[in-house]
């Protein structure tokens, strides 16, 4: 099966996003960040010594997985019932609430996606194919006011340039953006009212459930031993949040 293949070739290919702190790329090109670090450790325990990470757009991850370009996605791709139907998720890994990036002082007082829908002028930026885009659309923001932004840096830039009224990402991503920008003309609003807390998991191809189950076993062991917390908490994520919920719950199974 797939795990044996991976053991044999000695590495697993994982897709990651270009979104700190879920992922971080150092100046020397080496990949770290919460999601790849967890994946690396779990695969090591499964007997796969290396992970080869490739940075990918969110939208390209699932097709890449289906096209066997990756063995797993570890990218902060949050679990949602439709996604659970498209891929096989592990148990939760990284949890985060949704946040808004706004001009300082939140002049329009946005607190929820519905607030944005209600303002006929307001535009919201979100990653294409990401959770935030879906939430905005579901809250009734029309398509032409949901701007698909390729990456966090672009979102921040567009907000600073006044092209967006709101840019929405998970809390940790937004705070990382603000920290890097050092710009006090923007601020974060979190958590977004009415938006659930989301957790991602490692996503596997449908059909690779055996690999997923093996992954789950090692992940559970790490959660148990506290090693899990030791990896993700320096990046700002909460291990307790991940351990307090489950795939079954998040996928609505």
């Amino acid at each position, binding site marked *: 099966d797939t795990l044996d293949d991976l053991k044999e070739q000695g590495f697993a290919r994982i897709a990651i996003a270009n979104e700190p702190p879920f992922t971080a790329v150092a100046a020397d090109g080496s990949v770290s960040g919460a999601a790849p670090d967890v994946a690396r450790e779990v695969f090591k325990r499964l007997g796969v010594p290396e992970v080869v990470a490739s940075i990918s757009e*969110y*939208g390209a991850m*699932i*097709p890449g997985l*289906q096209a066997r370009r990756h063995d797993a996605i570890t990218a902060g791709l949050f679990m949602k019932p*439709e*996604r659970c*139907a*498209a891929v096989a998720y592990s148990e939760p890994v990284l949890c985060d609430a949704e946040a808004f990036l706004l001009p300082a002082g939140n002049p329009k007082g946005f607190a929820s996606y519905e607030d944005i829908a209600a303002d006929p002028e307001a535009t919201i930026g979100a990653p*294409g*194919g990401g959770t935030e*885009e*879906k939430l905005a*659309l579901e809250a009734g923001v029309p*398509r*032409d006011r949901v*701007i*698909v*932004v*390729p990456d966090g840096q*672009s979102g921040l*830039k*567009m907000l*600073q*340039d*006044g*092209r967006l009224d709101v840019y929405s990402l998970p809390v940790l991503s937004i705070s990382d953006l603000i920290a890097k920008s050092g710009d006090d003309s923007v601020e974060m609003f979190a958590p977004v009212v009415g938006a659930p807390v989301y957790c991602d998991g490692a996503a596997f191809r449908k059909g690779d459930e055996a690999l997923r189950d093996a992954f789950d076993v090692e992940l559970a062991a790490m959660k148990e031993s506290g090693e899990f917390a030791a990896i993700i908490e320096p990046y700002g994520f909460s291990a307790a949040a991940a351990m307090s919920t489950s795939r079954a719950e998040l996928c609505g199974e």
Partner: protein
Amino acid sequence: MSWDWAFVWQIMPTLLQGLKITLLVTVLGAIVAAVLGLVFAVLRRSSIKPLAQGTSVLVQFIRGTPLLVQLYVIFYVLPDIGIRLPALVAGVIGIGLHYATYAAEVYRGGIEAVPRGQWEAARATNLTMRQTWAHVVLPQAVPPMIPALANYLIAMFKETPLLSAITVLELMNQAKSVANSSYRYVEPMTMVGVFFLVISLISVALISLLEARYGRKASR
């Protein structure tokens, strides 16, 4: 993953919406390219040396670097110096500017293709410079340019997907967004390919009509 016709029909309106933007960008970009191209062509013939050379370097620079990166710069860097263009405008200007350098080349070639003897005959019949351009050179230079310009129009049309990188909701971006929310990729992407193929095949056929028409006229 199998092909699902019902899904194709379901996403058709969204894709057509994107196609509308794609065509709009193409047409507006073509106008920018045609006008700016003429400006470039004229500046390059300018008798003011630094102006001619500066234009020449600029044209070479624009032609030598990827449109995608130029779009990034126009959209994300220009605001730093206070130029904040809406995405669609930035896209039209970016693609128009890029293709203006190609149009300039076509103009130059068309003008140079008018035989020297025609300039000389105009001079021997004592036409002024302006009359020579208006009555002798341009009427002969322009028709043979039309097919080449039309070819670039098609090339431009096929490059519009780049505008998705600066958030313009053109055909490719619509298709991606459909794919992202449905997790079905083959149908939308294939349909984008079909749209492009059909439109450019039709255009190519139209161009060969143009070529036949103006080619004959030009060969007189």
